[in-house]
């Protein structure tokens, strides 16, 4: 398995996604306001705020899983996982850029989360457990 350009590509797309998630974590207000009606109460705002923070925090947790698998060397040289991860995170980076600039309602974040954060993290976890517990791959 030779070192191709896939490894830096995977790293850079993960970092791009991570940076955008941190930026959204810091500037949530506009996105929450877009998902509420014209006049909203503070309790509605707080509820949506909490929900959004939970979604972003879970995303950061899944990032930790994926980064441990990648930087720890467990799945660094697996081309399928690398390709899936690169595609999912670059799609997430593009979608999150639109999310920021066009001020999407915060419910739409769950779709981005499902396809672009949960999917690579789940396959990563499957690979990690497979390698560590069942000694697959070597």
């Amino acid at each position, binding site marked *: 398995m030779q070192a191709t350009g896939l490894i*830096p590509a995977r*790293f850079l797309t993960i970092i*791009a996604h991570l*940076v955008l998630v*941190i930026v959204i974590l*810091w*500037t949530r207000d506009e996105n929450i306001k877009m998902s509420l009606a014209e006049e909203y109460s503070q309790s509605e705002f707080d509820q949506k705020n909490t929900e959004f923070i939970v979604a972003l925090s879970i995303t950061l947790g899944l990032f930790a899983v994926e980064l441990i698998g990648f930087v720890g060397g467990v799945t660094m040289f697996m081309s399928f996982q690398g390709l899936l991860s690169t595609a999912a995170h670059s799609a997430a980076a593009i979608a999150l850029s639109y999310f920021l600039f066009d001020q999407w309602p915060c419910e739409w974040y769950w779709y981005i989360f499902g396809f672009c954060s949960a999917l690579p993290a789940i396959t990563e976890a499957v690979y990690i457990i497979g390698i560590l517990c069942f000694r697959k791959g070597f």
Partner: protein
Amino acid sequence: MTSVTDLLFPVHKSRDELKQHIIWKNQEYVTNLPLQMLLYFNCFYFPFWFIGSLVILDLKWERLIDLYRIVLVAIYVVYFIIEVVRLYLGYLGNLMERVPELAGSWLLTLLLTFPLILLLNINDNALLLPLERALHILMAIFVGLEVIVGYFAIRAMVNYQVTKYHLQQFSDLDNMEDNEYFPETRYTS
């Protein structure tokens, strides 16, 4: 110069001959893998960090006071030059196992890059925007980890080369023909 190196990276004098022999036999290389990974990914991350920082600087140029305009431009110019030199020296020093280059890279990281990136991170008077915060925090993690891992890498490399030099003196004693012959090592001072 050896006195400064001895002060920063002291060699354990308590190793006995047997342990030196084991080290000599078992270690084929002292290239540090975590440091190499950090430098590699840092090389890829640096252009994007730099472009992002310049874009943010352009966006907030109007609202900055004069002092921070000058300070931030100076920081970015200096950081660019220092980073290129530091990454190149670190690559060269770690892969070719050369102590002077690696020590130079480590000193550049510790004394120049580390304070600069801390300043970029913490100084709220320069109107830190969220994107800037995210980018600078990542860069600070890279630099901090390189300082810590680099110290251990240099210490291992210095230990290895000192024991190799000592053993070479003993093993080459039979081959020495005249007084002008010195075994060549990479541990130059």
